[in-house]
């Protein structure tokens, strides 16, 4: 049961000593209730309070990290069922699969391409996170060769997929010293797999048809000395996997330790890129810690990586629209330029009013970290310099001939400075409220 700020406050020294970095004990308590600080930051907390408070702070889902020579990827540490409740923390690693029955040249080529893939999304470089090598041949040597070929082409972390301990052993030895995911232990092979995982000091993937099967396995494996595990619910059809992924997450959040591990979803088994894309989207939305895909094509990977980025953004930040110049009602070079901030409601109210007026305009949306016009102006995030920078960055001057720019009425005070920042522009002050924009556009600017 999560404690409120006041409940925690009552267990603290209440001296306002400020040594934790917060001005009062109550401020610290509220941060602690929101899980934004560690209890250890309080130098004077009693052992008794520590014990009482410790329980609410242990992470319910174990953090599991995979490592290759160049990169790491981690899953786990999630604390909620719905992103709006707090946020989803660790983006699910997207792994591209190769199979050891393909020839090594094909493997190298696919792995190299996947590994090199990077795409810019709003200034963020999106990449794939790892390579899954599947041992379909059943031949240890072939698997080792495939793993080796893949490793030559990339430094990304690996997921080694085989239920044959002999094959798995040959595979991990090819990348000894790394931290691949050994995928998979099941109820018949788990003892041998545990031995391998211990030798490799690598996390172990655990496959099960049912929750019971998974939980029994993880307990046995944990008792045998392996702590890092990743769960693979065997059902892959969307309805069944959604149910099982949801149940695992719910149980984990209720501190049911045998299922307190991240999960992996294999979208790769569908054999159809179209289907695979929807499976991957499904897995990203609903709780997978790792997603394996078979296809690798930019038009397929790009939307999946963007979806992952979106679902894992911090929902506690204000809702923002992308800073850009927006075209409303098909504006021509002779039409005016309006300016506002990127707080979504601010944007919507301005855009809707202009759209509703039927009059064309260019709407420059500046990056104000999701603040409304007045708030951003107050905090110095919407001033002449910021506006001028946006106008230049978005190339607005090349889109228009008349160069009329309209400031929100509340920031009339900026007009002088903006004229200095934007020589050649006619700076006008618009109405204070968005509802008055259509009238303004029709009368003042007409």
């Amino acid at each position: 049961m999560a404690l409120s700020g006041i409940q925690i406050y009552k267990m603290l020294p209440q001296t306002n000593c400020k040594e934790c970095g917060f001005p009062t004990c109550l401020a610290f308590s509220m941060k602690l209730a929101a899980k934004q600080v560690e209890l250890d930051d309080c130098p004077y907390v009693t052992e008794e309070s520590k014990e009482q408070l410790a329980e609410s702070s242990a992470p319910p889902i174990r953090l599991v990290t995979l490592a290759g020579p160049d990169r790491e990827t981690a899953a786990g540490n999630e604390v909620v069922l719905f992103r709006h409740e707090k946020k989803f923390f660790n983006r699910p690693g997207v792994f591209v699969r190769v199979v050891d029955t393909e020839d090594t040249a094909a493997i190298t080529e696919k792995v190299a391409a996947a590994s090199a893939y990077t795409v810019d999304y709003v200034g963020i470089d999106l990449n794939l996170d790892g390579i899954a090598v599947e041992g379909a041949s059943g031949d240890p040597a072939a698997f080792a060769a495939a793993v080796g070929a893949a490793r030559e082409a990339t430094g990304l972390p690996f997921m080694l997929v085989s239920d044959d301990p002999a094959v798995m052993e040959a595979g991990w030895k090819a990348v000894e010293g790394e931290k691949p995911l050994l995928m998979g232990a099941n109820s018949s092979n788990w003892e041998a797999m545990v031995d391998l995982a211990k030798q490799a000091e690598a996390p172990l993937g655990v496959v099960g048809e049912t929750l019971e099967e998974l939980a029994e396995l993880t307990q046995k494996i944990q008792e045998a000395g392996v702590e890092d595990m990743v769960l693979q619910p065997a059902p892959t059809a969307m309805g069944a996997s959604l149910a099982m992924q949801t149940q695992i997450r719910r149980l984990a959040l209720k501190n049911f330790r045998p299922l307190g591990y991240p999960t992996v979803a294999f979208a790769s088994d569908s054999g159809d890129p179209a289907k695979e894309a929807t499976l991957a989207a499904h897995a990203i939305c609903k709780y997978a810690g790792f997603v394996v895909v078979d296809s690798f094509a930019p038009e397929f990977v790009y939307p999946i990586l963007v979806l992952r980025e979106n679902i894992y953004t911090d929902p506690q930040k204000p809702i923002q629209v992308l800073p850009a110049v927006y075209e409303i009602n098909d504006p021509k070079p002779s039409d005016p330029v309006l300016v506002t901030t990127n707080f979504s409601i601010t944007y919507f109210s301005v855009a809707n009013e202009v759209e509703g007026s039927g009059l064309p305009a260019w709407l420059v949306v500046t990056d104000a970290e999701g603040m409304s016009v007045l708030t951003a102006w107050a905090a110095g995030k919407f001033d002449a310099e910021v506006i001028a920078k946006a106008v230049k960055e978005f190339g607005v001057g090349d889109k228009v001939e008349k160069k009329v720019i309209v400031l929100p009425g509340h920031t009339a005070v900026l007009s002088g400075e903006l004229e200095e920042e934007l020589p050649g522009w006619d700076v006008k002050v618009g109405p204070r409220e968005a509802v008055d924009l259509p009238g303004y556009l029709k009368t003042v600017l007409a």
Partner: protein
Amino acid sequence: MSIEIPVDKWPGTVNTVTLGATEADGGTRAKVVTIGGEQSLPFMHFETEMPHSPVIALEMTPSRTDDWSQILLDAWGDVVEDPARWAAAIEAAGADVIVVTFGLTDPAGDPITPDYAVSTVKAVLEASGLPLVVLGPGQADVDNELIVPVADSTKGERLVLGLCEDGNYRTIVASAMANDHLVVGRTPMDVNLAKQLNILMTDMGLPLDRIVMDPTTGGLGYGIEYGYSVMERLRLAALQGDAMTQLPMLVTPGYEAWRTKEAKVGEGVPETWGDWADRGVHWETLTAVSLVEAGADVVVLRHPESLKRVREAIDELMTAAPA
């Protein structure tokens, strides 16, 4: 080991809403579509049966299609020039519902008239037996001017009329009430605003089972996460028993996806974006599937291939265990 699966028992139920009316019920539809009725989060079949599958609508416009991506126009071919044929093609493609969205002008570029709106809607009703959603261009005055005569001349069809927004809902709600239609209310990605509009519309006396809500979504890469979370929160509130959020949700991933640069534009974009046509369909499909996961009851799409993919995903999600 036996594990007790945590089961949520919710006090609230999403309203059941039927779109369209057959002859027996005062309309002309060959088929009606019923949505809503959920007593659990989407596809939690182990808790309660999901009484109605999410449905898929395809959108068409009897106005100029200048702002439609070339990929879409290629996919539909010349039917886009004739609303009746377009509607028939949509039915043939397997949609459950047709969405007719008017722009500000007719195909010739002249301002749209109420007469044109009425005759177009009638032509679509004749060409297809599916339930219809009819939306104005989203400008209060024009919407009211077009939607009222459409409502009057199609009494009893249980069309879904829109767009109702917080500053402009009275006229459309009144004409829906007078003519046995439904309405859709749209609010910009905010739980409170969605709820507020529902309160305003029901305050006028429109029964809750004749309203669907469009909480608005962003397209993939353009704010989908906000729409996604708003929908999840609305659905959670509905299940917790908040009557003013217990409305089935309609969202427009087709519109949102196809206005993104990724789907709309084929030239002068980074190579790392890959093949344009495939990318566009993925963009729409992924947007739609994510929103279905978040609780959408109606997804409005634009590309027939996306419909196939989203349909397959919904069918799979509706299946509790592999057959």
